[in-house]
């Protein structure tokens, strides 16, 4: 899949040649820094891109159907019902003027044409499912009467209200405190198990990936530079960017005096260097990297890296 954002006369390839697939019950982590295209990728799965953006090619298959060929009306029936999304800031996702019960019941009323009493009783169950204490009283309250952790759980309840097949969580715990984050991540995992959800985690935090995900895709400058099973990526990263990222984060109990920093800045998407986008910051750069964009190299089963230096690993090739 790739698509292009046009702004005035400049064209930005915000997401370019990104391919992935996932199954129900699976958790995929999409990691990247700001501007790496990870949120754009998530929004394009729901076709919620800003009007200036255009899909330049590719397809998005969801349960076999190409979402890009759907009409707006068909998309509306999918959003919130079969694909749901949880955003970073719960205060911005919730409407301050409606009660929590109204907002949790809304998708049920819209998608399943539930009556108000039945939608509300379902809303109470959902609040209980996301561990809101005293749900009978809380349904009648407004978002401002709740703490940040509770609000984010309400957003989670809205997300699962119509039992979607795919839940996309975009930095869902960035605004939460540590112990509340741990509660919320465990809750998401339980919901996933209970409903067989496919879960996409969009995050810049490799710790969340290590804790939650089965597979991970690393984005850099709009491209997926490496993807594969989480354990393999952490143990044997094949792309220099992934390796550098893993080495640059402080770890509990490590005695390094200095962290391994990545020089330079992430590139401007409108002025990408020719060749590999990471070449200017790459410690292992060779001449070819600056001239030609690297291909996707399969280094091990279901583990690919977009790098000239990546080679199929001996242990997997011999098999």
């Amino acid at each position, binding site marked *: 899949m790739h698509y292009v954002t046009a702004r005035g006369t400049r064209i930005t390839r915000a997401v370019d040649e990104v391919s992935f697939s996932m199954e129900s019950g699976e958790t995929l982590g999409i990691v990247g820094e700001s501007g790496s295209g990870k949120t754009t990728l998530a929004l394009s799965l729901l076709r919620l891109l800003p009007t200036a953006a255009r899909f330049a090619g590719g397809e998005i298959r969801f349960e076999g159907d190409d979402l890009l060929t759907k009409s707006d009306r068909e998309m509306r029936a999918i959003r919130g019902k079969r694909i749901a999304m949880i955003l970073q800031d719960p205060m911005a996702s919730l409407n301050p003027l409606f009660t929590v019960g109204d907002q949790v019941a809304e998708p049920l009323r819209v998608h399943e044409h539930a009556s108000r009493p039945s939608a509300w009783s379902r809303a109470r169950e959902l609040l209980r499912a996301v561990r809101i204490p005293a749900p009978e009283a809380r349904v009648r309250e407004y978002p401002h009467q709740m703490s940040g952790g509770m609000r984010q759980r309400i957003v989670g309840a809205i997300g699962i209200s119509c039992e979607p097949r795919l839940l996309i969580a975009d930095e869902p715990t960035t605004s939460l405190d540590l112990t509340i984050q741990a509660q919320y991540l465990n809750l998401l995992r339980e919901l996933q198990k209970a409903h067989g959800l496919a879960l996409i985690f969009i995050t810049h*935090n490799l710790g969340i990936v*290590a804790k939650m995900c089965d597979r991970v895709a690393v984005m850099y400058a709009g491209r997926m530079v490496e993807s594969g099973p989480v354990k393999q990526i952490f143990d044997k990263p094949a792309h220099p960017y992934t390796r550098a*990222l893993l080495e640059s*984060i402080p*770890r*509990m109990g490590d*005695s390094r005096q200095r962290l391994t920093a990545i020089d330079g*800045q992430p590139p401007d998407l409108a002025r990408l260097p020719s060749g590999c986008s990471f070449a200017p910051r790459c410690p292992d750069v060779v001449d070819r990297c600056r001239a030609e964009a690297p291909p996707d190299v399969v280094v091990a089963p279901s583990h690919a890296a977009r790098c000239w230096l990546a080679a199929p690993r001996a242990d997997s090739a011999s098999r």
Partner: protein
Amino acid sequence: MATPVIEAKNLSKLFPVKGGFLGRSQGVVRAVDDVSFAIAPGQTLGLVGESGCGKTTTAKIVLGLEEPTGGIMRFEGQDLQSLDGAGRRHYRKSVQAVFQDPFASLNPRMRVGAIIAEPLVTNEKLTSGEVRKRILHLLELVGLPERAAELFPHEFSGGQRQRIAIARSLALSPRLVVLDEPVSALDVSIRAQILNLLRDLQAQLGLSYLFIAHDLAAVAHMSHHIAVMYLGRIVESGEAAGLSQAPQHPYTQALFSAALPSHPDERREEIIVAGEVPSPLKPPAGCRFHPRCPHAMPRCSTEVPTLRPQQSRLVACHLFD
């Protein structure tokens, strides 16, 4: 031990809460309650805790932006209360801050050179040539090119802006820098650059840091000592490596077990504490953590535990009495 750069003894800060009819007093928030710590020259104290635990109020008191309601603050052995005007000025110059968001902390209408020079111009009598020399020296210290002085903040990325903010904080050659979440607004690949820079500057200039952050691994990496706060009180404090690897207070244990793993195989025992931090307006009686504590005993709800030495560390918990 050398005289600490800064020492707090039984520090507290109460905020009266007014409201209702005619703004009658409705009680007080004990934002900081009986907090003591000391930072030695060239050392870093990491302050951790969740929102509402009082770490920002503590930082504000250290910066002189809030007056403590009780307790003593000493700077290089001198009681701050006893300082005269010149002493106060010297204190303010010696304690500087770097904030979380370098997009908010730098004036967009000033050139970088003027931003860095502002503390110099307001606090010291220097000729413009001397100021210029100091600006260039500071830019070099934080790894920015000379020409940066002529540019505006919007021409820099987040990491470079944080370097500018650091250069400004160093302009008056402070002894202590308060770092309030200095890297959490930055991109992951940039954070290590800034953390390394801060460590280099500490080694080079003998700076002391009060480091406040959510990322426990970063705090453990940067700090010599760590103090853990919960609802205005320090529940545990001690040497960083020991505390982060073998926390003793049930809250510290829960907090560090909630920290995200650095590898998918890393499975630590998860202690999920129930519920949320209670309102500081109505803190629980006794130990403030007892309603969420997995080891709570009857006396925890009545008696306030005090910090006691426990294996080279201070822990405030009845379990260790």
